[in-house]
């Protein structure tokens, strides 16, 4: 009998069963993304370590990062100063530790802001269509024509390099990407039967958007956030290196390298330390981003 029933099952039924098969839970997805590959585990550990250092910077740093000591200019590493001192006799290790705050805050803040704004714009454009879509899409196209570093340099040079200016600039630079991705995903989700059913049942628009659409387009947004956190840290370092990012005397990895360049024949440690920190963090975040993408992408996750 069993065999007979199997034979009677039509291909349409099989397809239907596959669709109804339980999808992996969110927790399971996160677990797969972060803990399945050793490289991702290491990357995650590195990022967590840097976040802990940034949070507890005042407790960890051996010295005040701004305190100058004219008698200790450009010193090589020693027991007192593990990474030596800079041209004002400031402890480079303490500056690195405090600098991680600026770098990481920039790294997280701008992509998060950009994700919020970009998603609102993209979902609005995709869901409502019509003139709203046309206006938002054209503005997004226009903004995407600017490379983000160029845009950041232009605005920082024009408005000066204060903390919020840089955050605003990077947010503006990243928003179009999020808007475009969320618009495309919204267009796809909008055609799903459950959305059509919700509309037919008279569910209010905000509820449809926040309950049915946004949760279902989060995957690509999260991937973008991870990838752009790395870009954001890199751009902040570039701007600070050029002198238009974090303003001295406040440390950031970029301006520690800039300062170190002028004393590179005496002590190379500020450049090495700043460069390594940026490389390691950017690499780690990129690895995590790649892993999340691999897991969420149906083609590569198999």
């Amino acid at each position, binding site marked *: 009998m069993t065999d007979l029933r199997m034979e009677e099952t039509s291909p349409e039924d099989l397809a239907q069963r596959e669709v109804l098969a339980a999808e992996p839970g969110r927790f399971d997805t996160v677990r797969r993304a972060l803990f399945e590959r050793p490289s991702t585990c290491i990357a995650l550990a590195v990022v967590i370590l840097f976040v802990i250092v940034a949070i507890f910077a005042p407790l960890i740093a051996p010295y005040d990062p701004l305190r100058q000591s004219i008698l200790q200019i*450009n010193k090589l590493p020693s027991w007192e100063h593990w990474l030596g001192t800079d*041209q*004002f006799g400031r402890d480079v290790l303490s500056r690195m530790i405090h600098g991680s705050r600026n770098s990481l805050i920039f790294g997280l803040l701008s992509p998060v802001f950009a994700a919020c704004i970009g998603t609102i714009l993209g979902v609005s454009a995709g869901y409502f269509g019509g003139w709203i879509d046309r206006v938002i899409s054209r503005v997004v196209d226009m903004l995407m024509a600017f490379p983000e570093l160029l845009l950041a340099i232009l605005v920082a040079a024009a408005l000066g390099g204060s903390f919020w200016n840089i955050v605003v600039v990077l947010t503006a630079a990243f928003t179009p990407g999020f808007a475009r991705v969320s618009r495309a995903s919204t267009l796809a989700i909008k055609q799903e039967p459950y959305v059509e059913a919700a509309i037919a049942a008279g569910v209010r628009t905000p509820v449809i958007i926040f309950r049915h659409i946004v949760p279902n387009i989060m995957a690509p947004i999260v991937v973008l956030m991870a990838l752009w956190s790395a870009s954001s840290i890199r751009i902040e370092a570039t701007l600070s290196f050029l*002198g238009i990012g974090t303003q001295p005397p406040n440390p950031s990895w970029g301006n520690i390298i800039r300062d170190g*360049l002028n004393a*590179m*024949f005496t002590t190379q440690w500020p450049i090495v330390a700043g460069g390594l920190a940026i490389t390691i963090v950017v690499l780690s975040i990129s690895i995590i981003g790649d892993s999340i993408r691999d897991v969420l992408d149906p083609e590569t996750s198999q």
Partner: protein
Amino acid sequence: MITRRTLLGTAMAATATGLYAPRVRAAEPDTLRFANSAGGPRKLDPNQITQGADSWAAAQVFEYLAQPADGDFGKTPDEFEPWLAESWTTSDDARTWVFTLRQGVQFHGGYGEMTSEDVARSFIRARDEGVDSSNYENIVSAEPSGKYEVTVTLKNPDPLFLGSTVFTRRTMIISKKAEQELGEAFATQAVGTGPYELERFDSEQGIFLSRFEDYWGEPANIAKVECLYIADTTARTLALISGEVDMAEGVRQPGWIQQMQQQKPDLQFDMTVPGSFNTLFFNLSKDPLQNKMVRQAIAHGIDKQMIVDALQPMSRMVYTLNPPNYPTGFSEEDLPEELRYEYNPEKAKALLKEAGFGGGLTIPVNTSKREDYSTQHLIIQEMLRAIDVNIELTIMDHSAYHGSNRQNANTLNINSWSLPPVPLFVYNVYASSAANMNAEGTGGGNYSHYGVEMDGVDPLLQEMLQATSFEGYIEKGREVELKIQEDLPMFGLPTLSFVVARNPRIDLGYEVTGGNAYWRFCRASITTA
């Protein structure tokens, strides 16, 4: 032996050279290459130069009527030697100066012999056109009184006329004929009488000069001089170390000279003493700097000795606006105790409390990216943190910084200038109400608005102008100096030598001890190939 440090240093130098210095060339046998810290040349006409770096080329192409020996300013009238003028006389009231010109002096490019017409024109255009014309307002007329004689008449007596007017960039002698013929092009193609003539003015790379074969005096030793522009400090430093350039403008920040000596022990450093005045201006139009107690507190909160120590061997102590070895400067012992403003954070805090700022004070300040400015501002920022004065520093491009100062947008700006030992000149550009900076950007260097926001030294300067003897003039000048110190609209910070690092293959031919922030190359020679 290759140590880790050598390896790292070499690797970084190699990387940075690749990034910054695309034009690596071997040292040429008969060329002197000088690199200064600006982005590119703007002007060659000495009366139109606004960028200090351009003066280096101008100093080779143009000459003065009289000048002190190479390597320093003339501090007294008898220290000036005849140059394009063979001799001069001055009237008893120091208002009329007659110069007898050297005969047979040829201009570059076939513009003929220098005559009194050219000299008269050079003085008049300094007064009527170009930059700093307000400094030459004392000139009533400059007229030829013979083919080789010029008479200059002054409004007020000036016993230091040679130092205040003759030995300045603006009155370097130019060819009147070339000025008329070339029109606007004269700004970059200016014609002078110096030992080097202009070969090529390249607004990207620099100013290229070659020996002037018809020079009236002893011809230059080295055939060619290239004044190159390398704004990036790292690139300039590497160009010097690699031998791409022979001389480079130094970086005035802590530890730079020491690290260069470590990297290339035979490098020579030419330094002017005292070099640049570094003057901290209190902008009296900004809150709460009108309050004298706040200004005094800031003065007491700055440890000048620490600045001197940090910037060794370039920095020297000053106690008033002028350095102690200048005619109107004061030594510490000469000053009344209350005008010494000794470093005393406790006193500074007490003054702030009395002024109503016991809880601290925040002042936004702009500074320049150029190392000497940013270094001083960063050191001062850290010192004032100890007396609860929070300086919010914005570091900007050098031109933008000067722009913000000139538009009254700054509060505690520093100005760096290699000023001559001509007291009236210093007061005229910094302290007189005529030099008041205004927000339209047309004013002078009185960034404090001294004499406008509060009574200043104008009456004393008028008295100084009437002095006919050098001694009387200096005595009045010291009164001005004390009055400024008491009113405290500006505060003298330690001076900083202008430094040029020189490859030992170049012998300058004389020792640099002071003077302007540019010097002549005509006596230089190449000692080794």
